[in-house]
C-alpha cells in the first residue's frame, strides 16, 4: 500500500533544492559541464572592488600623459593628474575597453575622477 502511494505522492510534490537534490544534480553527467560553463561565462565574472581599483589605477598609470607616481585611487583627472578634457575622454574610453563596457555618452561625460570611475565600474553588472 505504502509502496503504491509513494510514487503517486511524489509525482505531485516538488522539493526545493536540498542537499539530496544537489547530490542528485551532481550525479547527473551534465552537472560538471554546467558548472564549468558558468565559471567561464563572461557575464558571471564578479570582479571584486579591489580588483576594479587595481585595474583602474593601472589604466591611468599607462596613459602616456599621466605621471604614474601621482596616481592614487582618490585622484581627479584634471585637478590632480593634469589632464585636459580631451585626455579625460581618452581615459574613459580606455576604461571602457579594459572592462569591456559600453558607457552611454552622457554618463561617460560625467566621469572625471577615479572615485567616480571606481563607483561606476564596481556597480556595473557587465564589468569583466
Amino acid at each position, binding site marked *: 500500500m505504502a509502496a503504491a502511494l*509513494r*510514487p503517486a505522492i*511524489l*509525482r505531485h510534490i*516538488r522539493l526545493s*533544492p536540498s542537499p539530496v537534490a544537489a547530490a*542528485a*544534480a551532481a550525479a*547527473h553527467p*551534465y*552537472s560538471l559541464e554546467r558548472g564549468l560553463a558558468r565559471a567561464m561565462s563572461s*557575464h558571471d565574472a564578479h570582479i571584486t572592488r579591489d580588483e576594479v581599483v587595481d585595474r583602474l589605477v593601472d589604466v591611468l598609470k599607462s596613459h602616456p600623459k599621466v605621471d604614474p607616481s601621482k596616481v592614487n585611487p582618490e585622484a581627479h583627472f584634471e585637478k590632480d593628474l593634469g589632464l585636459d*578634457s*580631451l585626455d*579625460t*575622454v*581618452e581615459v*574613459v*574610453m580606455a576604461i571602457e575597453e579594459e572592462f*569591456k*563596457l*559600453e558607457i552611454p*555618452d552622457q554618463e*561617460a*561625460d560625467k566621469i572625471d575622477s577615479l572615485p567616480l570611475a571606481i563607483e561606476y565600474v564596481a556597480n556595473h553588472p*557587465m564589468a569583466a
Partner: protein
Amino acid sequence: MATTAGYLARRAAQKERVRLLYRSALKDTLNWAVHRHLFYQDASDLRDKFETNRHVEDPDVIDRLIDDAEAQYRNFQHPDPYIVPWAPGGSKFTRNPPPPQGIEIIYNYGKEN
C-alpha cells in the same frame, strides 16, 4: 552680468559638444582601424585636428567649427561599428537569457525514488 553668465553657459555647452564629438570620433576611428597600431596613428591625427583650434576664442567661430566637424564625423561614420557583445545590437544581446527566478531543472524527474 547676465551676458557674462550667458557667455559662460554658451562656452560650457560648446565644451560639452566638443567632448562628446571627440568621444564619438575616437570610437569611430577605432571602428575604421583594422589593427591597433593603425589606430594609434589615426587617433593621434584626430587629436591634432582638435588641437589646431584649441585657442579659438570667438564663440561664433567655435560654433561654426563644431558644426563643420560634426558634419564631417557624420559623413565618415562607420556603417558597421563595433558594439560590445552584451549591449543592444551586440552579438550576444538577448542570446541565451538566464531563466526567470524560481524556475529550476529537475534532472531525475519521474525517477525520484
